[in-house]
């Protein structure tokens, strides 16, 4: 049951993207399997502090997608760097409630991209979250294992892992 859950849904999402396209500034870069997709995201318009920049957003889907949230990170490699943003750590981990307690199974890959794009669009200050270095040093590779605290202004994390308590 669980194994089949994500496949049909992702096929459907892919078909929708192929027929109807993605919103402006969002491009499906690769969807070689039903486990991992990469989107390219840029913020359009003149006002943005990210003018001319493109970021790669990687989503890893588990068997229980969309009941469970996918693992979402900005790529940090030779080609792409995570955006300088107070909610994005330099290892690409993102502190966003939609990827945590506000995830809903009716959301989808494109909706995540749109949220990320709008998170970038509304930013006016290019800076890393407080405690970036400490977090990056101790963070688990899967950001879903981090205990995130969501608040509007400051992004804050506990580098400890879920279940430690």
């Amino acid at each position: 049951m669980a194994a089949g859950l994500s496949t049909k849904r992702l096929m459907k999402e892919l078909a929708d993207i192929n027929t109807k396209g993605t919103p402006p500034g969002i491009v499906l870069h690769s969807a070689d399997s039903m486990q991992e997709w990469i989107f390219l995201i840029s913020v359009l318009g003149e006002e943005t502090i990210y003018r001319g920049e493109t970021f790669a957003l990687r989503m890893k889907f588990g068997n229980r997608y969309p009941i469970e949230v996918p693992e979402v990170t900005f790529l940090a490699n030779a080609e792409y760097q995570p955006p300088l943003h107070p909610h994005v750590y330099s290892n690409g981990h993102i502190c966003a409630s939609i990827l945590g307690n506000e995830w809903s199974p009716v959301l989808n890959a494109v909706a995540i991209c749109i949220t990320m794009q709008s998170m970038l669009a509304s930013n006016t200050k290019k800076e890393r979250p407080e405690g970036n270095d400490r977090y990056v040093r101790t963070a688990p590779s899967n950001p879903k294992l981090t205990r995130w605290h969501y608040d509007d202004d400051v992004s804050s994390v506990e580098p400890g892992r879920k279940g430690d308590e």
Partner: protein
Amino acid sequence: MSSDGENDEFMCEDEYDDDGFDQDEDMDDVDSTSEPDVYDALSPALEEAPQKKPYDVTWKVRTLQEIIDMQNKEIKKIQSLLEVPPSTAAILLRHFVWNSEKLQEQFWNDPNAALEEAGLSPPTSPSTRTHNLPPSPEKRSNRLLRPTSVSGSSRTRSQIRTEPFECPVCCMDFDTSAVEANTFAMGCGHRFCRNCWGEYLSGKVKGEGESAKIQCMERGCERVVREEVVGEIVTADILKRYHNLLNAAFVADSPNLRWCPHPNCEFIIECNQAPPRMLNQLVPTVECKCGHELCFGCGYGASHRPVLCRIVKMWEKKCADDSETANWLQANTKECTKCQSTIEKNGGCNHMTCKKCKWEFCWVCMGPWSEHGTSWYQCNRFDERSGIDARDTQAKSRASLERYLHYFNRWANHEHSAKLDADFYKKTEKKMEQMQNSGNLSWIEVQFAKQAVDAVIKARITLKWSYCMAFYLKRNNMTELFEDNQRDLERAVENLGYLLEQNIVDTDSIAKLRQNITNQAAYVQKRHDILMDDTLKGYLERRWEFSVDI
């Protein structure tokens, strides 16, 4: 205490009345400490039955079923008072943390607002609609991905489906005829297939341990899933876990309830006299039906009287941090005379450079290296002023470590002795047999030895905690009185321990030994009660001053 005494207590406690949740009325009908102790029957010296002390609490031991009944009783009450279905009453109560007065007040003030706050909003209310976040892109996604997104008109509440349906989660299609049987929507109207509901609810219950506050799958919809919905959709084992979680949440939400912390014990203690604000003057030790003592205040799995919960917590933390290493530190290290970092010298000459503050000093005289010249391997300037000052600072830091170790070692010593109680009982049993054989004593006549061991072990546990207490007490006259009581009990226990080790020679000596042990056991018991009584009363009289905030 012997098991006889305990059974009596519990038989008495079992007679709780039906209205389990209105504890205030039945608080005093069972006095858990008023049953006579077994000492009374056998040792005349301990005749007086313990009265209920001002620092004792009364409690009841509840079964899981009673906890369930308590909840149902409250739910029924609210159900009839507010004229709502039982699951609505349950959700309201859980939302208002079982405070039915507050619930009623808010409900009668504005029923719709109270329902909405608890996650039972009517279909038209704003909280059942999806919150747009971020507002504009969400609309875009609706336009682009209509089937997987939700907007008001396409999935409104309807009893009879007249069109085919695609589950927005798994994208399965359902014919018009199959929709009713295979899909489900709560009052908010957000419809999904039963398969996805099952996956979602199982994940919430099993994966995240959620129970009372599982919300609709729709983004931003705060509609709470009712108990009967969970019951209808998930498998039996998930449902069982769900109910366990609900019960656990109820106990956690009730300040007057606490699970017995002992392994495999499923009883719940109910106590109304030990709210958190009282814990700076009360040590609410209670005893579960499983036979173990626990502290109702903090859940510690044994009696930690006479020490307050907060002090116990500090002590345990300190011991976990310090005691393993403190002994080694004392033997092998010194502190940097400037920044007080602890330094281990593992070789080399006496010219030390602190890694932390870069201070250079001599390991032998502890004076600054700058005044030291070239004597790397020997130090002949022990009496220089600067060296004396440096050693002074060092001594102060050592003194605080030594003070801690003084109390810790005594604490640990009693802890260790009390842990060997099984051995102690076995040895004593052998001796009792010997006395029955060689001294012609009856079984009942040799019980004094076992009672003496009981008294020793009980006193050792109290002594153990008394050293934790003393570590945190400020030095003053009251503390001196406390330490006098502690010393008297310490001596009495050692004497009794010594007598219990004595060998039995002949019939005459047995009679004498028996008399001695009985007397000394009574004395230990008395010293124990004095220490306990005085210390616990001292909290109520605010006699104790601590070196830490409590």
